């Protein structure tokens, strides 16, 4: 029920029956590429709109309300404006790196979308090292940011990029360790396996307190990894004007901006997949009436519902907390989060070996 499997399978069968295998594969690649680019831009637009509405709601104001019904097309209008804007390159910058940087950041966040499972049997690439692939590829984006900061020939950009480098590299550790906690419980890196293992309950419920600790650390760490407040030191508009993308304008700036929001979506989707069961409906135990009722809600709604809930939480952070200082930021990671998550991982391992989890 409610599965995309039939549609994708019929397209696949038709393509392979009509064309030669090579052509069919190329056409499939093309379709996927178009889907990903479409998803990338739609996600960016929706999330920017969401951020503006959430912030307006928290800040006792209305937010965008002029373009389209309820201001829904404001971000579309903004993006159109940015596209037609002159793609300016400042004087005395390293032109090649300057122009390359936004594309690296964008491509990284596009590639990371591949192993994510958006609904039941709706996935681009069910690679057997899925979660490792996500962490590995997403860490490449720091190169794009460092490149942007270095090439801009601007001291603010350089400082922002340095901060960003220090921050992302450190927080990846505790994000990775809390991901490992679930991998240990599941015994697999494959996204579909991780989701299927949560059929009789999500890991955050099944994994006792260590899973909850891992979840909290994961949310803190990914907030830092995506450079969002209260860890937005790389941009820190009151200190470094705009940090690493100070010198960017037009569509090159928009690519950074869209990539930031798509990254937020990705980390929230990973969090939802690992801790909240991905597309898996809310199940308790096996084979009771409650589970059957929950199964009637489409899996895509479960996935996007959980993801957008986490996104809302991260936006909530941004509009509530002040920013940390750079030394406090690094202290938090190296003195608190990393030891806690290492110890937590040991606990989880013990739980997994003794099969204490449900």
């Amino acid at each position, binding site marked *: 029920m409610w599965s995309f499997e039939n549609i994708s399978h019929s397209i696949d069968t038709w393509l392979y029956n009509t064309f030669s295998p090579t052509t069919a594969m190329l056409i499939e690649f093309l379709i996927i590429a178009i889907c990903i680019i479409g998803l990338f831009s739609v996600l960016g637009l929706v999330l920017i709109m969401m951020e503006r509405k959430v912030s307006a709601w928290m800040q006792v104001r209305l937010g965008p309300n002029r373009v389209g019904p309820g201001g829904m097309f404001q971000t579309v209008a903004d993006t159109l404006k940015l596209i037609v804007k002159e793609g300016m390159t400042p004087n*005395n910058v390293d032109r090649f790196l300057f122009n390359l940087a936004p594309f690296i950041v964008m491509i990284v966040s596009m590639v990371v979308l591949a192993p994510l499972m958006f609904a039941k049997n709706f996935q681009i690439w069910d690679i057997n090292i899925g979660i490792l692939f996500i962490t590995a590829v997403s860490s490449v984006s720091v190169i794009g940011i460092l490149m942007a900061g270095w090439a801009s020939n601007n*001291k603010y950009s350089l400082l922002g990029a340095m901060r960003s480098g220090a921050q992302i590299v450190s927080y990846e550790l505790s994000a990775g360790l809390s991901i490992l906690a679930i991998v240990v419980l599941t015994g697999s890196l494959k996204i579909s396996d991780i989701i299927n293992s949560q059929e009789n309950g999500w890991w955050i419920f099944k994994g006792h307190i260590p899973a909850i600790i891992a979840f909290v650390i994961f949310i803190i760490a990914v907030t830092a990894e995506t450079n969002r407040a209260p860890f937005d030191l790389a941009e820190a508009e*009151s200190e470094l004007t705009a940090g690493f993308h100070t010198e960017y304008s037009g569509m090159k700036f928009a690519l950074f901006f869209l990539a930031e929001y798509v990254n937020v979506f990705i980390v929230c989707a990973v969090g939802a997949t690992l801790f909240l069961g991905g597309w898996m409906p809310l199940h308790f135990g096996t084979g009771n009436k409650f589970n059957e009722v929950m199964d009637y809600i489409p899996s895509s709604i479960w996935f996007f519902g959980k993801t957008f809930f986490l996104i809302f939480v991260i936006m909530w952070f941004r509009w509530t907390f002040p920013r940390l200082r750079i030394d406090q930021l690094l202290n938090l990671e190296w003195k608190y989060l990393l030891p806690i998550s290492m110890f937590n991982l040991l606990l989880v391992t013990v739980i997994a070996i003794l099969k204490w989890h449900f």
Partner: protein
Amino acid sequence: MRRNKKSHLYRETQIVETHSADVEGDLVINVGPQHPATHGVLHLVITINGETIKKVDPHLGYIHRSIEKMCESLSYRQFIYVTSRMDYLSSHINNHGCALCVEKGLQIQVPPRAQVIRVLMDELTRLASHQLWWGAMTMDVGALTPFFHAFREREMINDIMEETCGARLTMNYMVPGGVMADIHPNFQRKVKEFITHFKTKIGEYDELVTGNVIFQNRMKGVGYISKEDAISYGMTGPSARGSAVQCDIRKLYPYEVYDKVQFDEILETDGDSFARYMVRMKEMHQSLSIIEQLIDNIPDGDFQAKTKAVLKLPKGEFYSRIETARGEFGVYIVSEGGTTPYRIKFRSPGFSNLSALDHMARGGKIGDLVAMMGTLDLVIPDIDR
């Protein structure tokens, strides 16, 4: 800087590097004059090593309008209105200080009704200024939401001002001998409404920001200045009271009815950014209490003393001081006996408070510098004049 061949096509931006980096690894950055943290056109040349600040050198003059010189060609009634444009967040109090000086020279007795109205307006202005400071300072440390919450309350004060004074920012309400017009019939009711509203919201301010652990970590122990240093830099106002300097002009040299109302001079002993923050937060409560004491006790009578149409100060020098939201504001008038002052000098609180920034910021981080500038509550037109 080496130029490539194409660069003559562009107009190169001249970067003012007043200090070349002496030590290897130091970096000189121009913060401002166009920078989101400087709240105006302040230009700081900072020398940093990594993230640590080694030197802060403020450059002034980007919004210098030669107000003191301008005042020399304006009459004693007119020059008061120019001072609204100096510290625009406490324009009432600036006007008040100038009016006091002229009254001192002419020995005008201000009617009791005007005195109470003046104090009420001063305290409302102080509240509005502290609210805006709170919003802007929290924005400096990275929390964007409080700004809008602060403006919600400030808007109510602006509405009150609009009804009585006819303006929302540069009120020009104080004149030599009293106030320009009587208070609006709605004034008392609206002020009471505001007090009840604000009393419920000020707890929200503390919940949202003061108690926040990130905020406390950002503020505590940074930007330290000792009592002796604060005095030697000439700091005044809440910034100095954060270092336990007793400098409230309302207590030390009471003017109008300040000696008849009950209020405390807030002193904090820590001398760091958080102490300066707490002084202002507590001062809001004190201002509220002053307004509460006076709002039902406005005496009847004239709102303005009878003065001559053309004011002529006797030959001599006159000085008056007043406590603005930022500190001590002094007005020094030299008169030759004519209708215009021979020379006017304003002592603005922001200027001397800014001079202590270098002392505080050395050894801190870039984020600290921004937070310190927030707690000093700088208004750049007040510094440059």
